[in-house]
């Protein structure tokens, strides 16, 4: 579908599929807003150790006198202004949100990347080889997808126990099947196209055909699913941590911060869980806005 390179006097920029994609993407204001939101959240989150006003997990820096202060108050002991208030252990909520966002994004990003790799490999192999391998793999996928993600994750965590690595493993086990099914669907269509036939006639090895010919043509739907799945992973991790079976107390994610502040909310100290909640919602909405628009652009049915 790539446009042949034509150098005409009127256009100085050659049109490539990628450039067309960039132009289409930037045309949508809502999607651009989502992208900017993602960047604005990711940079301070990953830079948290350098820019956060306080290291919220350095117990020595905390003073219990400064606990449960409303947003905007100045600490008596350290003199820091707590723009978003402090929690029951005198942690600065803004700092805790930045560190928590870092944990949430890290868990989501790692789990999506690994499940993308596993799911893509399984899906491509199932579609390319077909037969009993396809039947077996897709039966496993079907069975897994007939169970709600939250239950599968809960079972995995109750088996594995708590810990950041355990949460990532549980999320990978939940997610790989979605990728496998999507990739298989696309690859089944692509594998009967002429270029695959041509590659086979050249008697190229199956590894090369799958990796160099089949995979690149299955990428568009994968990109869409991976983006939206990133938001789902953040939401699922937050849910598990909120329920108390997710990340450990030493590395709280946004979900755990919300759970910590939950008991104080009913007595009117809304800020302890409200601000982590807002950060979580912004991250999920930002990614979904981008993903939704990517789906519109990359769906071949919408292409001209």
């Amino acid at each position: 579908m790539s446009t042949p390179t034509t150098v005409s006097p009127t256009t100085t920029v050659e049109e490539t599929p990628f450039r067309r994609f960039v132009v289409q993407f930037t045309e949508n204001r809502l999607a651009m807003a989502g992208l900017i939101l993602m960047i604005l959240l990711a940079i301070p989150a990953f830079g948290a150790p350098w820019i956060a006003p306080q290291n919220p997990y350095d117990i020595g820096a905390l003073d219990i006198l400064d606990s449960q202060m409303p947003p905007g108050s100045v600490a008596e002991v350290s003199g820091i202004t707590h723009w978003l208030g402090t929690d029951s252990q005198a942690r600065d909520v803004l700092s805790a949100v930045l560190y928590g966002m870092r944990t949430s994004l890290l868990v989501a990003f790692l789990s999506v990347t690994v499940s993308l790799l596993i799911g893509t490999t399984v899906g491509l192999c199932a579609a390319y080889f077909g037969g009993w391998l396809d039947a077996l793999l897709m039966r496993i996928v079907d069975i897994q997808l007939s169970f709600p993600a939250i239950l599968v994750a809960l079972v995995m965590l109750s088996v594995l126990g708590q810990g950041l690595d355990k949460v990532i493993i549980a999320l990978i086990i939940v997610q790989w099947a979605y990728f496998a099914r999507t990739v298989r669907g696309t690859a089944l269509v692509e594998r009967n196209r002429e270029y695959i036939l041509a590659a086979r006639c050249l008697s190229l090895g199956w590894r090369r055909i799958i990796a160099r010919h089949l995979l690149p043509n299955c990428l568009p739907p994968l990109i869409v699913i991976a983006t939206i799945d990133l938001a789902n992973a953040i939401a699922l991790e937050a849910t598990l941590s909120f329920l108390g079976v997710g990340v450990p107390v030493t590395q709280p994610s946004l979900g755990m911060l919300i759970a910590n502040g939950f008991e104080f909310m009913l007595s009117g100290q809304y800020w302890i869980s409200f601000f982590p909640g807002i950060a979580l919602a912004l991250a999920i909405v930002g990614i979904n806005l981008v993903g939704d628009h990517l789906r519109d652009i990359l769906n071949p049915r919408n292409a001209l």
Partner: protein
Amino acid sequence: MPVFIINRLFQAFGVILVMSVLVFVGLYLIGDPTSMLVSPEATEIERQALRKALGLDQSIWVQYLTFLGNAAQGDFGRSFLTGQPALQLIIERMPATVELVIVAMTFSVLVGVPLGILAGLRPKAPSSKAIMTGSILGFSLPNFWIGLMLIMLFAVYLGVLPASARGETVSVGPVALSILTIDGWQHLALPALTLGLAKAALMIRVTRAATREVLPMDYIKFARAKGLRPSRILNVHLLKNILIPIITVAGLEFGQAIAFAVVTESVFSWPGMGKLLIDSIITLDRPVVVAYLIMMVFFLVILNLVVDILYMAIDPSAREKVRD
């Protein structure tokens, strides 16, 4: 059709068996529950006696076969914490969950289907775009987050609805129901709304897609050309034909909602079986976790089967496909 049902029954049985092995073997790896049940000062002999009493001293396969045999008779062992039969604990909590899910699903269909039709009829209108953006929020934001915001608004800020527990119940036979008292409805409102909003978002999307698919069909055009009232076209011609995907999705989502009630119940301290599961996972009460999971597997497999059969019954074209 009978061949199809028998075939699916065998598959369902296989899935249940495989899942029972996975659940049991998986949960067998959880830490030693005796360390939680006896006091730290207990002697090794006391620990051994407890392990023997709980059957933990036998090999994993003996334990599994015993478990499978007992499970077939509805005996999943006793809770390590309360000593009550695990299945009884779950069944006691079940009405609360089922009640919550039924109210939430009813809400989602009553709200989601009309909004979905509206968005499908006029896809370019600003109101439709607002509905669709709202639905993205509805199913992408985590369930507990929506619950939290509802609590903040209705229970803390406005102070009009309670944020936890089940309220007054009326016993109908052995089953206690909240929906028969005003206090019960007040307690039910927020959890049901939390669970229902996410499902309503999904129903909107399904209904809209179905409406968009049915609208260009010849029979709709013909009905219009015949001069039928738009309300009749909507209520008869359109609604009948978008019903198939709606019933299928609503049926499958019922199972999902029972599973997601785990989260909603935890937020609102709703005394259902989902809250029981979370409490049991945290306290390593293995028999209750295993019993819940096996019950859920059983329920979900049966639900899938029923939805498949219903789908066959209401959609003649699907019957044709199976025959081929």
